[in-house]
């Protein structure tokens, strides 16, 4: 005999195809409390969606590393010119 927890019948499980649209909202803490609880409950039992969440986090972490790119660093000549312009203007004032 199967005993059903009444909560199982009342709480519909979040479908995975809805979760994948909510990952960014979930990570931003932008979901309403009720929806967030549904997502948390779903993640606890769904390895596929837990994988998606993990991959989203990896994408964010990897994107963060692009900020360390050399091309992002200011050209020393330009930097020097800017700092000179800053100092010059302040001497004039």
């Amino acid at each position: 005999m199967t005993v059903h927890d009444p909560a199982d019948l009342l709480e519909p499980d979040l479908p995975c195809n809805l979760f994948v649209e909510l990952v960014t909202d979930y990570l931003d803490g932008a979901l309403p409390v009720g929806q967030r609880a549904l997502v948390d409950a779903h993640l606890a039992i769904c390895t596929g969606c837990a994988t998606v969440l993990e991959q989203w986090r990896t994408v964010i972490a990897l994107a963060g590393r692009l900020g360390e790119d050399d091309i992002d660093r200011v050209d020393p000549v330009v930097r020097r010119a800017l700092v000179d312009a800053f100092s010059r203007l302040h001497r004039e004032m």
Partner: protein
Amino acid sequence: MGANYDDDGVLVPALCLGDAAAFEWMVDRYHGSLRRLALNYVATGAIADEVVQETWLALIQGIDRFERRSTLKTWLYRVLMNKARTRGVREQRTRPFSSLDGDDLTLSGFDPDRFRPADDPEWPGHWAAPPTPWQEQPDRRLDAIDTLDRVREAVADLPPNQRQVLALRDIDGWTSEEVCNVLGLSQTNQRVLLHRARAKVRLALDPALGGAP
């Protein structure tokens, strides 16, 4: 050592007093990100460089009159956006922020066939073909150079509006409030653009990291 320039209450007075270290701190921190943002609007790297330099000059000349109705960072990026947009229009290369980008992917980048149909008797909308975890690929390091190259290419291939949001949120680590403020987006729009952008980067990485087709 140095002063806490993250605090506008420290940074703004230091700049007004001509503290070159404060200005250098700002240049080192924001120059690359400003340039990246400018490139979404103008045709060449050379024009982007000019726009960023004009922005710095605007800061140098305007700091005494800065009224702190926003953070200095927000003000700086707004100045850049205005200058870049103006230049973009002049160069006939402007790409309106809200323009459709011809996306035909689902929002999250998953093929609808990977989920069970809506009329599935047991688990409608649940995974039929769940994703393969990346971290279980022992021969592939997530932080390998070629992985980062793939991320870089995927970001470069994004439509400008998505790239801009992802760059500020995930590359520069801004909050959603800051991004909405500077780009003039609603929270919802900002998150939709960000979600699509991340979905595409994920999709670009998936085959190389052993994801299921």
